[in-house]
């Protein structure tokens, strides 16, 4: 069945190695869960059409490699990305501490208008397996980075859809804001243009005499 998709959004999934980026993308796109995935070398690409408040939107999701040496290639990945899902693993403190690295990386490489969402993966684990508890995650995130945050679980299918849908909604809102801004400017420019034309017309009549 062909769905008339009104827009396509490019979304990038980034984060440290082994935090579950591929798993998250699979859970979202295929609604499946496997225990192990082949480690992503370079980049993978999936897409899904979502129903965003009645409007079909295609999400183009780029699943990136977490290993450090592949990060030198990221500039190419960031090109044209409208949304970013930044992932860490609640059982791995390093992956949480590296968030500031990733945010800096985004700042340096992505468009300044890019929309971000943070996901703390593997939240189904019990408290003693956790390295980052939820309150701490929320607190740090509220203080340091002003972006929406979800604790997600691919295994338990918790908040996976919400993460991507929130991101999609934010992208849509931004685009609408920009579009209306553009229209306003257009209108303003149009008014000016009319005035100019009037002026030009009066000038020309003047010139003809």
């Amino acid at each position, binding site marked *: 069945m062909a769905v008339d998709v009104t827009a396509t959004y490019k979304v990038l999934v980034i984060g440290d190695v082994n935090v579950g980026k591929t798993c998250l993308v699979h859970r979202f796109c295929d609604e499946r869960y496997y225990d192990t995935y082949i480690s992503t*070398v*370079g980049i993978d690409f999936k897409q899904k059409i979502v129903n965003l408040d009645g409007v079909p939107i295609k999400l183009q999701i780029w699943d990136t490699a977490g290993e450090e040496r592949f990060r030198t290639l990221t500039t190419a990945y960031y090109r044209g990305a409208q949304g970013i899902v930044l992932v860490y693993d609640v059982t791995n403190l390093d992956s949480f501490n590296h968030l500031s690295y990733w945010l800096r990386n985004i700042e340096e490489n992505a468009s300044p208008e890019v929309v971000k969402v943070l996901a703390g993966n593997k939240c189904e684990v019990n408290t003693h397996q956790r390295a980052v508890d939820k309150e701490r995650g929320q607190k740090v995130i509220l203080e340091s980075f002003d972006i929406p945050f979800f604790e997600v679980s691919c295994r338990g299918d918790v908040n996976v859809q919400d993460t991507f849908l929130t991101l999609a909604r934010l992208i849509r809102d931004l685009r609408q804001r920009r579009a209306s801004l553009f229209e306003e400017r257009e209108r303003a420019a149009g008014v000016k243009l009319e005035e100019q034309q009037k002026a030009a017309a009066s000038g020309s009549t003047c010139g003809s005499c």
Partner: protein
Amino acid sequence: MKIARSLFGTGIPEGYTDGSSHAQIDTAVDEDNDDVFLPDAPEGLSTGNVPRHNSGGVTPPAIGGPFSAITPSMWPQDILAQLSQQDNHRDPNHQPLYRFDEFGFRVEEEDGPEQSSKKLLSQPFVEDPQHRLQWIAYLEFSHSEEVGDLTWDHVDIRLPRTDKLRGMVRSGVPHSLRPQLWMRLSGALQKQKSADISYRELVKASSNDSLMTSKQIEKDLLRTQPSNACFSNFTSTGIPRLRRLLRALAWLYPDIGYCQGTGMIAASLLLFLEEEESFWVMCTIVEDLLPASYYSATLLGVQADQRVLAALVATYLPGVEAVIREHDIELSLICLHWYVTLFSSVLHMKILLRLWDLFFLDGSIVIFQVTLAMLKIKEAELKSLENSAQIFNALSGIPGDVDDVECLFKVMENVCGSLTEVMVETHRRRHLAYLMADHGALINPQNSTNLPKQQLNRRQVAKPRGVLELLLFGDEDGSEDMRNKNVRQTELLVDLREAIIQVGRHFKSIEANFVSLSLNPDYSLEGHSHDLPEFLATARSRHRRAKALL
């Protein structure tokens, strides 16, 4: 039938054995002529506690059945026993958990019909006895000076490149001869024989390595080939081998360490070769067959190759290039991992084996040729697509769609038969230079190694010839001298620069008033004219810092 049995049944010939199954071979010797190819000494040995099976307890796979194409020491005995039980007591209600193919990959039931609709892939993977005989005849003919039966011990460790050999490799190496021939085609056997350290020693040296690399290897072991029964869980036959092999590699090449993607190549090799052979083939791949900085921390080599590919596409496939340019598609996003894994992550194993036959013969030029051929085959489809997402999808799906290797090789000949190694090398050098210039900002003296080297460094395990000695007296090989001299001079400069940075870092760390000093080199002429008088003044005053330190 008999030959098929001798290939895939219990009497597996040469190279398919580990030390303990020697007895098995003796029992399998019958009047068959092929058996002159038995090794005098079993060549494949596994280091460490790999389960050894004796001829009594082994359940061999069915001919052409699951696992039949992999080396016997990798056979998952538990699964094979289950499979043979199922055959013995046919229980119509009993459904096996999974089906496996000849290589041990799990066949997803839903993929079943789709798989079999593919031309080449639906054919059973059984060797043609004629094909094997043809190869044996070729080897015997090229070793006619040998009296008596030819054994692998008497076959040259490198096969001379003849047109006949190239033609035969193009039509495929018989699967039962692959272990022996890959070792000889790639130069891995030569490397193994001339190495000053054995694989066993390397495994030992790297086993007490509790570095980050070992941790990362551990994390990736099950994420390398999860759909293959030999690599699907920690008790699988291939996992301890893969662990030892990757650790040894990371230990031997400190400039690389562990690079994701190499595991995929290693795992594919381990299915067919014994552990030690697989290791030396890996060494040959990273040292000789691919450029030096391919897997380095910056991935410069493989990035340069992506640019080379783009240039070759523009030259040989202007139609494809036009589509890619019109839709602003970055080809490297798609192709990079094909190259990092030497296609092992994307091609069907049957196709991959044929590609690697050629790769071990001709080296890295083959990966460009095959990419160009695959793009050519899809050219019409790519032109018919409308939007960039569709094109991007079609491009990413290209290797997975390859099902006819003969056709692929034919297209390869037509499209880029004129491509030469020199052309690839020229492109490579240029793009490596561009990349290094682009990354100028990234070359940061805080990193311990930051410039690409012309040759991959091994960890020093024995006293090497000094660089100066090599520079002054050269190698025995005179014809290569000029080229090597250039390479060595560059190396020397890289090392010198690194040494200076290290000295600088040392003084920065011990003296407080140097802490704020920048180690970023200033190559400008103004900087030079500023430094020169200071240097001369210091030299005149004979105030030597280094001497004072002594």
